[in-house]
């Protein structure tokens, strides 16, 4: 079996003491920062990215995967204990998770989230390993027109899944694409929109945008509320291990969530959010035993299933990234940026030219998942302590670590000040109710999209109909249209508004 050869190769790479160390450190740091209230996974990852600069590529990627999973797990811990969803995909976890925590079953809820994520992660890794190869071959059928169409689909997906107004989300994508064009145009060598500032000729750093908008902007916005709406669980968490009845209920739910998540994650356009919402809706439809609390009242299925779906989807969303080189959501866009910093251009060629790296990463994802389970169940006491830290101690530390981190990227103070500038911009976005995640995705995709559009039109001699006449491209664009039509349908629009009503 080729699959097992590949996985064996991957585990051979990942299971060295040094690499296990990096995975462990990544998970620890990711959870440590991710659990802090008011810091979402995007801010966490961008803050921790500079810590990987000095490492060789494989080690850096392994540590990044650890940070990624740690940040996500930390986010759901905060969601359950503080009733504060740090990101869109943990919005549904909050519903039942926090109810369980209030009923004194925080331990079981956290364990359900952890176990659900782990089991889903195992399946997700297998799916990734199975489908990566055939999909990478599909990637070679992709011409520039198809890449362009795929990016349009991804961006439409991001718009559709953004909370709030569709028009605003569209605007943010466009603005992100435009900001991504700042710097030297690869084709003509002309520096665009740099205002003769030498630091801008390389473009605006993605880390600058991410830290500014998601770090500084969030801080300013958080501080503008007078009373922090924090409702930290005061009681001690005990009874971590789920009861037998819990197991009986959550295992099938985890299986359903995993299946749903694995499929939805492959779709470009941010499958993780869609997966957790869909799986929660599915659990609501499934027959409920008479002695079971209803969903929304602290049902363990309502925690386990969306967390499993979320994690399976985040695992399989690596498939479009690694095979086509296209990030399906903002978090993955950050990962692309990180990989390019280490001189790895994600895409179909990584798998053939650099198999240790590819399969090592796949294996280390599984290790990261396992490590989280091992780490977090015993360490949960520490994470809860962190949650009670007052925000007035946290925010100066975040401001500082972002500044040091971004300075270490290029040893350039200009970058520090750019973070400050984007912080102000990010605060404006939040104040005007504009969700910044689609902006980041657009920002990463900007140059890629321009390049592919240029090539597609060059090949067709300027004829735009090439996007409609090439079957693959036409299918992708039709899918984007269908997605758009779907959210504009009145019935679905209503549920979408309901789902995001808390924001």
């Amino acid at each position, binding site marked *: 079996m080729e699959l097992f050869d590949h996985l064996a190769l991957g585990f051979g790479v990942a299971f060295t003491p040094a690499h296990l160390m990096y995975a462990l450190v990544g998970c620890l740091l990711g959870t440590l920062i991710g659990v802090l209230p008011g810091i979402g996974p995007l801010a966490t990852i961008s803050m921790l990215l500079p*810590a990987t600069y*000095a490492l060789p590529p494989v080690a850096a990627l392994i540590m990044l995967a650890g940070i990624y999973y740690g940040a996500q797990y930390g986010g759901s811990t905060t969601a359950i204990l503080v009733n504060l969803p740090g990101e869109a995909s943990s919005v549904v976890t909050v519903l039942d998770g926090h109810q369980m925590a209030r009923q004194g079953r925080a331990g079981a809820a956290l364990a359900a989230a952890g176990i659900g994520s782990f089991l889903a992660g195992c399946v997700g890794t297998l799916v990734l390993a199975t489908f990566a190869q055939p999909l990478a071959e599909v990637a070679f059928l992709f011409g520039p027109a198809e890449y362009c169409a795929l990016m349009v689909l991804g961006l439409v997906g991001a718009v559709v899944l953004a909370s709030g*107004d569709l*028009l*605003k989300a*569209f*605007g943010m994508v*466009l*603005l992100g*694409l*435009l900001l991504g*064009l700042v710097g030297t*145009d690869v*084709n*003509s060598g*002309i520096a*665009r*929109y740099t205002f003769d500032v030498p630091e801008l000729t390389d473009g605006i750093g993605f880390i600058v945008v991410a830290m500014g908008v998601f770090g*500084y902007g969030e*801080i*300013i*916005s958080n*501080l*503008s509320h007078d009373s922090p709406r924090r409702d930290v669980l005061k009681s001690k968490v005990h009874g971590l291990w789920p009861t037998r009845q819990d197991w009986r209920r959550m295992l099938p739910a985890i299986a359903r969530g995993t299946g749903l998540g694995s499929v939805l994650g492959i779709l470009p356009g941010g499958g993780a959010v869609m997966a957790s919402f869909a799986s929660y809706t599915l659990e609501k439809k499934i027959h409920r035993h008479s002695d079971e609390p209803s969903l929304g009242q602290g049902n363990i299925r309502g925690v386990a299933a969306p967390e499993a779906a979320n994690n399976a989807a985040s695992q399989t969303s690596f498939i479009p990234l690694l095979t086509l080189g296209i990030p399906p959501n903002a978090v993955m866009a950050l990962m692309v940026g990180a990989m390019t910093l280490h001189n790895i251009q994600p895409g179909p060629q990584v798998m053939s030219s650099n198999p240790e790296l590819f399969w090592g990463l796949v294996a280390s994802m599984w290790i990261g998942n396992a490590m989280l389970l091992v780490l977090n169940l015993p360490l949960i006491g520490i994470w809860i302590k962190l949650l009670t830290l007052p*925000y*007035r*101690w946290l*925010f*100066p*530390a975040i*401001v*500082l670590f972002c*500044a*040091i981190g971004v*300075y*270490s990227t290029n*040893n350039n*103070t200009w970058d*520090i*000040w750019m*973070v*400050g500038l984007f*912080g*102000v911009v990010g*605060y*404006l976005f939040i*104040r*005007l*109710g*504009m969700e910044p995640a689609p902006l980041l995705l657009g920002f990463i995709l900007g140059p890629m*999209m*321009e390049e592919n*559009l*240029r090539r597609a*039109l*060059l090949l*067709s001699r*300027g*004829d*735009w109909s090439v996007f409609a006449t090439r079957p693959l491209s036409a299918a992708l664009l039709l899918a984007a249209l269908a997605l758009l039509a779907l959210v504009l349908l009145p019935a679905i629009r209503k549920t979408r508004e309901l789902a995001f009503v808390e924001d």
Partner: protein
Amino acid sequence: MRNAKDFYAGLLFCAAGGAFAWGAFDYDIGRSARMGPGYFPLLLGLMLAALGTLMMWRAQGQKPQEGQRLPALAWRPLLAISAANVLFGLTLVGVPRWHLPPLGLMPGIVLLTLVASLAGSPVRWRESLALALLLAVLSYVVFVWLLRLQLPVWPSWGR
């Protein structure tokens, strides 16, 4: 203003899109078969400006809604965080033009923490100072010892 949030968001898009489209004329636009460096930004800028206009127009026609009123600008955190950021950069590497020598990371951390603390109210000076010292020690261990970042750490006079 009927729906202030949407209106100003539209205005922002309109201004940004217009600026990018305007700037695109400084570069060669080309045509679709041979796109110049100005082609794609012009296209996107016009789309963004059109979208912004649409949003502004839509916001005018709407009835005033709860939660759509613009919250007051949070000047205090905005200024404190920005100032802390700017000062940190200045302290770290100094300003040759003003004969300010690089003071390095340690003074920078203390300054940043104290200024950033002004963002919250009430300001607790003693607590902030303790936090500043803690962060300085922590940063020294993590960034200077463990990660060996190339940063000026202490003040360097006379250079």
